[in-house]
């Protein structure tokens, strides 16, 4: 009778816990023998060990103290909407930051990487693909320089120390709020405010008055033109910060724009030479690191097909079936 997956999983969990407290020599030999009998056992052990590591992520709850309290609490409230968990996030951030080591001030993401930084004061920074920030916290100000790319800032309240983001000569100041700063390739800087308000101004020879940007608004600042303020609908706002979850939101964007967005994240690039095809608009949410799904879905929708050429996914009109 073949051993069931469940039995193997049970034994694998036991081994992981034994490995955690260090194996004796004889146990080591028993483990070797156990593993050699069935490849599924190696797989189950690998999975259990991965799970063990995965659960380190729950470390972040350490500072929240919530689970700690629950050790004595009789009843456990399961549902906990994240909207009301800002306090936990602040505490969580502190714990995470403690992990990262105190000396680090420069952070960067590779192509396709989305990274969350948790700063000393409880501020939460999410870096989008190919982005770079440097952090300088002083006693009077909290200064973050966005050197490239795009970042979402969820700023912890500290009235005594304003939080200022530099993006080129553009400055964004917040006290306790959440906003996105996006340094675009055309040298303009987008500021999108999700919560609270921020002040935006340009550092120039002649000082400019700051523009106040409230929640649900986007401010586009270019090097030359006056800043433009626009109201965002709820859908536009969630689309603008969808990348935080590794999702590309294609609400009414053209296929061409969508392809450019995917290409920011992936080594496999989408190429669309046909302008008629590129100008079609699409709706949907896709995983940022999965351009293949996107072009395949786009091809199916637009009676087009996908041709692969090395690292390039070429979307072409016509239903030519390619295997």
């Amino acid at each position, binding site marked *: 009778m073949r051993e069931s997956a469940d039995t193997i999983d049970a034994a694998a969990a036991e081994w992981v*816990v034994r490995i955690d407290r260090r194996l004796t020599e004889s146990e080591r030999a028993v483990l070797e023998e156990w593993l050699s009998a069935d490849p599924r056992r*190696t797989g189950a052990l690998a999975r259990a*060990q*991965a799970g063990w590591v*995965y659960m380190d*992520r729950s470390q972040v*709850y350490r500072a929240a103290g919530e689970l700690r309290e629950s*050790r004595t609490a009789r009843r456990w409230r399961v549902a*906990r909407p994240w909207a009301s968990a800002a306090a936990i996030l602040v505490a969580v951030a502190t714990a995470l930051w403690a992990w990262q080591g105190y000396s680090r001030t420069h952070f960067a993401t590779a192509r396709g990487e989305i990274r969350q930084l948790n700063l000393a004061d409880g501020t939460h920074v999410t870096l989008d693909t190919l982005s770079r920030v440097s952090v300088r916290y002083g006693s009077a100000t909290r200064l973050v320089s966005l050197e490239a790319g795009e970042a979402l800032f969820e700023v912890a309240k500290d009235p005594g120390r304003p939080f200022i983001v530099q993006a080129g000569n553009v400055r964004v100041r917040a006290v306790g709020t959440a906003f996105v700063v996006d340094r675009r390739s055309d040298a303009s800087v987008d500021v999108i405010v999700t919560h609270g308000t921020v002040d935006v101004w340009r550092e120039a020879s002649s000082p400019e008055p700051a523009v106040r940007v409230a929640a649900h608004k986007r401010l586009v600042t270019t090097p030359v033109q006056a800043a433009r303020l626009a109201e965002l609908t709820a859908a536009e706002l969630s689309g603008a910060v969808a990348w935080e979850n590794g999702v590309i939101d294609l609400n009414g964007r053209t296929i061409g724009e969508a392809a450019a967005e995917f290409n920011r994240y992936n080594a496999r690039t989408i190429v669309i030479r046909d302008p008629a095809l590129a100008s079609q608009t699409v709706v949907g949410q896709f995983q940022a690191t999965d351009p293949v799904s996107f072009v395949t879905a786009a091809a199916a929708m637009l009676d087009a097909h996908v041709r692969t050429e090395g690292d390039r996914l070429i979307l072409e009109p016509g239903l030519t079936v390619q295997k």
Partner: protein
Amino acid sequence: MPAISTARAQWLAIHIMPLEPQLRRWLKRAAPHALEADDLIQEAYAKLASLTTVSNITHPKAYLYQTVKHLILDHIRRSKLVCIEAMAEISQSTVLEEGLTPERILSGRQELERLYRAIARLPAACRSVFLMRKFDDMPQKAIAAQLRVSENTVEKHMVRALRMLLEDLKTTEKDFDIRAGRDQIADQASRDA
């Protein structure tokens, strides 16, 4: 650590574990009934654990699905009654299939929320021991001393906590219903075709 390196365990934790729920759903739909998802997933982890390097894997999801597909084909080939239909079905079902529908992935925060709830569901004694080990970073021996129980008892609680949490990682609670509905629609469409 024997069996796999910590680095490999981390890689699996980051790139593979989060894909498990959707992989299981795909297997339920695409794999022949005689093959158990749990078996195939153990075999897939074994393959990924035994690779000399994973640094060349740029698309872990595609790699995982490809690996599982090969495993299924091997099983079909080895079984005495080769079912041509099943073989063709699996060969044709591309890795893309799962990705065709726009999907929401779990954000870091949702992932943490899920773990948080899973830990909350643990029996009290298991949870205490788990928290002491994982959050306070206490060795098992020290936990036993503090709780005045045997090391064996601590080990048992740890095993139970780990097993329950690993079980939780098999499914997502959130978008399950939506996904199941969509899968039915996809099945219907493929039958109609």
